[in-house]
């Protein structure tokens, strides 16, 4: 491995900018770190270069631990967005800088310089000053300069940011060519997904300091694991679907899946439909793919090779739900069509069309949607507007539905499933909310968020599960939440007081939890071990500092309200409960 990052964390003023990033980059690989601005990708690159230290974790280059090695001894070449050429030196002096530092002889130096200038096609420019070159030429000089001392790793920090489209493309090609010719391991940081696709062997996508997914461009595009990646890499329609024993039910259509699992009860999932996988036809019968719904063309934009449309879905019981609809519930599907498709079926704005889906991908994400549940419509509405919930749903691109349960918490209400609870149910944390929570959990709510009034965005998420059946669900849910919040994850292991004498057992549990989180969910978390009664210890831990959140898995609802009263009615922290019965 050329570059190995192990749980690298960097904080500014207590806020993690790079959060527990682990990554291996192979020899000669062209790796692209992609993410929106502020996602921590540049900070990570600077950490690899040695220009900023890390607070936690380890960095190794070619097997050599360089975590505490100065930048000048790391043997990396770095190219900056604004070129950072030495303006008082000529092109030749700039390129030879690293060679002069190393006291290379004049003749060898000149030879190496000629070689580099040829590599970036700038022969004969030796005596120019940077100010006399165009932006693209300056960046070529910067690349040559960074390669002069034959570094083992080349790092590029948004190198095309300041260039116009045509030059950018040309320079992209040059850099890719140089990289192949030298076989040098390269990391490029960018926020431009097109650039990432054009250059990368593999892409790593960062958001809020976390490395969300790593993979080859095609795999990431066709099979993203998270909503963020699905929508950040190209356009995507996110639809809510039902996963049942037969397959995936999306609106009026059921798509059969290979992995049938009879016996599993129905649950909600998020389906990704790329705009180019949507088919439009005059009638349902004319569709060649699975029918989704009818709709009306709202907007058409001609973009050259492609036509881009927005199609509003008709309302109706069978209509599929958009995962991210606006408040009024207006769901519009993004569609792109090739010239060929346009010729086959011409549409105009306002026209009614039948919509089909050629291909869809189901996200393995556990948090599909939120439903704010309260005794009255007004309370439910108010709950759905809570800032933390609104922020979470905006970041996760999920919708918030509202549900009124007039008899919520009434003890003698018949204990049977009331319609189904899909997605995550949200209730307000208030007095006797423990009992309401039990009421909802017993009536079929599987995932329940107990949300205090005006709860702040958490900086730390505590994770715990009671009973192994809930472990997988708790970890999956934690991973999903933490991908969307800039918070640190802490698994709290709790052993009964009398187990203090035999600590090895507790430690094993912590290590197992951590490695499972890492392996199955890509979630890096810290671990803590405490002794005592579970809900008391958790409440005590939550008391310790503000802005914390708890994600807890439960299997057994016996005396739930009583056991969890202290935890839920303490009131200042949100608690997300995952209920999974022991089979």
């Amino acid at each position, binding site marked *: 491995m050329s570059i190995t990052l192990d749980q690298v964390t960097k904080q500014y003023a207590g806020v993690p900018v790079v959060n527990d990033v682990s990554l291996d980059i192979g020899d000669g690989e062209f790796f692209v770190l992609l993410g929106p601005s502020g996602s921590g990708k540049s900070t990570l690159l600077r950490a690899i*270069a*040695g*220009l900023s230290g890390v607070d936690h974790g380890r960095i190794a280059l070619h097997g050599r631990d360089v975590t505490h090695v*100065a*930048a*000048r*001894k*790391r043997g*990396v*070449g*770095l190219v*900056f967005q*604004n070129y*950072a050429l*030495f*303006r*008082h030196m*000529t092109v030749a002096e700039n390129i030879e*800088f*690293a060679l002069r*530092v*190393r006291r290379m002889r004049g003749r060898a130096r000149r030879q190496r310089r000629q070689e580099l200038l040829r590599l970036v096609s700038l022969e004969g420019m030796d*005596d*120019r*000053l940077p100010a*006399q070159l165009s932006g693209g030429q300056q960046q070529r000089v910067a690349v040559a*300069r*960074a390669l*002069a*001392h034959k570094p083992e790793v080349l790092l590029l920090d948004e190198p095309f940011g300041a260039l116009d489209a045509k030059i950018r493309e040309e320079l992209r090609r040059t850099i890719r060519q140089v990289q192949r010719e030298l076989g040098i391991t390269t990391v490029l940081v960018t926020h431009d997904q097109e650039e990432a696709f054009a250059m990368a062997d593999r892409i790593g996508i960062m958001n809020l300091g976390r490395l969300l997914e790593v993979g080859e461009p095609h795999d990431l595009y066709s099979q993203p694991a998270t909503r963020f990646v699905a929508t950040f890499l190209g356009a995507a329609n996110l639809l809510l679907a039902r996963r049942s024993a037969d397959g995936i039910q999306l609106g009026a259509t059921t798509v059969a899946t290979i992995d049938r699992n009879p016996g599993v009860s129905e649950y909600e999932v998020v389906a990704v439909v790329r705009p180019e996988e949507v088919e439009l036809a005059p009638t349902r019968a004319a569709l060649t793919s699975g029918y989704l719904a009818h709709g009306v063309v709202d907007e058409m934009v001609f973009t050259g090779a492609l036509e881009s449309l927005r199609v509003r879905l008709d309302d109706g019981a069978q209509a599929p739900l958009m995962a991210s609809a606006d408040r009024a519930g207006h769901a519009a599907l993004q569609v792109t069509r090739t010239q060929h498709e346009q010729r086959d079926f011409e549409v105009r704005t306002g026209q009614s069309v039948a919509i089909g889906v050629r291909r869809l991908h189901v996200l393995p994400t556990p948090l599909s949607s939120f439903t704010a549940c309260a005794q009255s419509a007004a309370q439910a509405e108010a709950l759905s507007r809570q800032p933390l919930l609104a922020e979470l749903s905006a970041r996760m691109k999920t919708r918030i539905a509202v549900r009124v349960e007039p008899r919520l918490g009434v003890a003698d209400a018949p204990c049977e499933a009331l319609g189904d609870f899909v997605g995550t149910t949200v209730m307000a944390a208030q007095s006797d909310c423990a009992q309401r929570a039990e009421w909802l959990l017993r009536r079929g709510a599987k995932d329940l968020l107990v949300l205090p009034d005006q709860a702040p965005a958490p900086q730390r998420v505590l994770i715990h599960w009671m009973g192994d059946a809930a472990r997988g669900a708790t970890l999956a849910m934690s991973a999903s939440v933490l991908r969307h919040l800039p918070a640190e994850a802490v698994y709290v292991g709790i052993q009964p007081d009398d187990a203090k004498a035999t600590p090895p057992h507790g430690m094993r549990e912590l290590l197992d939890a951590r490695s499972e989180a890492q392996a199955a969910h890509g979630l890096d978390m810290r671990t803590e071990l405490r002794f005592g009664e579970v809900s008391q210890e958790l409440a005590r831990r939550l008391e310790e500092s503000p802005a914390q959140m708890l994600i807890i898995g439960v299997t057994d609802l016996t005396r739930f309200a009583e056991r969890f009263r202290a935890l839920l009615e303490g009131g200042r922290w949100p608690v997300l409960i995952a209920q999974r019965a022991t089979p």
Partner: protein
Amino acid sequence: MSWRKPSVLPGFGLTFGFTTFFLSAIVLLPLAALILAAGSMHWSDFVHVVLSRRALGSYRLSFGASLLAASINLVFGFILAWTLVRYEFPGRKIIDALIDLPFALPTAVSGIALATVFAQNGWIGRWLEPLGIKVAYTWLGVTLALTLISMPFAVRAVQPALLEVQRDLEEAAETLGARRFYVFRRIILPTVLPALLTGFTLAFARAVGEYGSVIFIAGNLPMKTEITPLLIVIHLEEFDYQGAAALGVVMLAISFLMLLTINLLQTWGRRRHVQAAH
């Protein structure tokens, strides 16, 4: 008016007229009067005044001490500016404000203060005395006073240039394998050199013209600790206006020559890089 380039800002005629008038009234006319006053002297009288041993001694002290003071400020002014620009520490704002104090203080006050501290029985002078170092009433005292009053010029000239040195450049040099001192010598220094020279020039000009603070600490012994501005005042007190004007003209000439040389040096330095490109 063919030399007049089209400009977004109107009023070239007005502003140029004002510039000429202002420069003439405030700078050129008084200087012309000075030269005229000296010109009314007989040539041999002029030479006699200007090349007297006392006058020659005063030139040496005035320009020597000024050059020394400006050189000291070149080094320490740079360090001061560097500290203020590059580091965050408690009291940084206060120190930043203190730099300007010598600007605001009446120079006589600075002179008296220095004389008090560095006199043989002063706070610092009494510790230097046993070591055989006399500051007050020697050329050392003159240099010290000139250093104090010209210090803000050096610091303030370099500060903005240092602010502009991009961190990227230093980081780029570091990843290329350069040690700190190498980065300083090859990257930072060349970038701020013009500003350093400007600071040096300003500090030197200020020191040459200084009078108030020096006379209190210099002791004013003819040939030894007498600066040229003082000699001019002595001539004035003897109602020898022509002698004073003659000395003034010499100071003017030497100062002008030195400033011109530094300016030319700067221009040459700037042009060298542009020429290197062809």
